[in-house]
């Protein structure tokens, strides 16, 4: 029954989007983390989505191909009294753009909702299929 494949595709999308949401949460909560276990300020992270191998019907799910570090320059804040300030009085802050992350979060949650909706539709179709001839 290939309607079950829709469940697979929808769940792959849901797990990918939840991973994206996870990364957004990490970025937002570390938006002001000036140091870490490596001694450097937190660098923003972004997920990279890629298409899974298509099934014979040409339909394919989605997966997270990797989490990459944001290459944009770190934010420099002049704060001479800060313990992490360099000799010029600048503190290196994370390169997380809070507005970007909020937009990212909204997009991820909408996509997640879409997948849930898709699953519900498919579920009702399957249930209807089981009533054939009754």
């Amino acid at each position, binding site marked *: 029954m290939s309607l079950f494949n829709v469940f697979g595709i929808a769940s792959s999308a849901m797990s990918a989007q939840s991973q*994206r949401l996870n990364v957004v949460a990490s970025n937002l909560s570390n938006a002001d983390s000036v140091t870490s276990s490596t001694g450097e300020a937190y660098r923003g992270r972004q997920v990279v989505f890629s*298409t899974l191998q*298509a099934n014979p*019907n040409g339909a*394919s*799910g989605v997966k997270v191909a990797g989490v990459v570090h944001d290459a944009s320059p770190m934010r420099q804040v002049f704060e001479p009294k800060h313990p992490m300030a360099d000799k010029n009085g600048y503190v290196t802050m994370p390169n997380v753009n809070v507005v970007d992350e909020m937009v990212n979060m909204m997009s991820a949650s909408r996509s997640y909702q*879409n997948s849930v909706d898709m699953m519900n539709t498919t579920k009702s179709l399957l249930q209807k299929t089981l009533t054939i001839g009754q």
Partner: protein
Amino acid sequence: MINKLDKELNFHHHALALRVGRQELLSSNVANADTPNFKAKDIDFASALNEKLRLNSSFGKVTLNTTSPTHINAGANSVLGDNILYRIPLQPSVDGNTVDMDMERTRFADNALKYDASISFINNEFRNIMLAMQER
């Protein structure tokens, strides 16, 4: 009469198989709405169904030409066969993704409704036969 039922069911059998295949394609489009360079796919339902009814054999199997019986025939065992088309984007995006969410969701709902309709037709067909068979 039974022959007529068989013919009718055969039609709906093909229609449902195509609807399921299309549902899968549309769900893959929605799932990949944020994947860079993903190209949305769909089928032309009417022409695909026509082709299925015309061939009316094993589900339009795409096979390789083999020159020796020992060759492995890697046939694509697909319901949709070679009917899958790429959607032409109305508003292409910068990352090469051609999924238009409004369009995909509308088609998804439309396809689901028509699947439902096909099932209703099958049920009605059965009901008619049952009615005809009952002696009152």
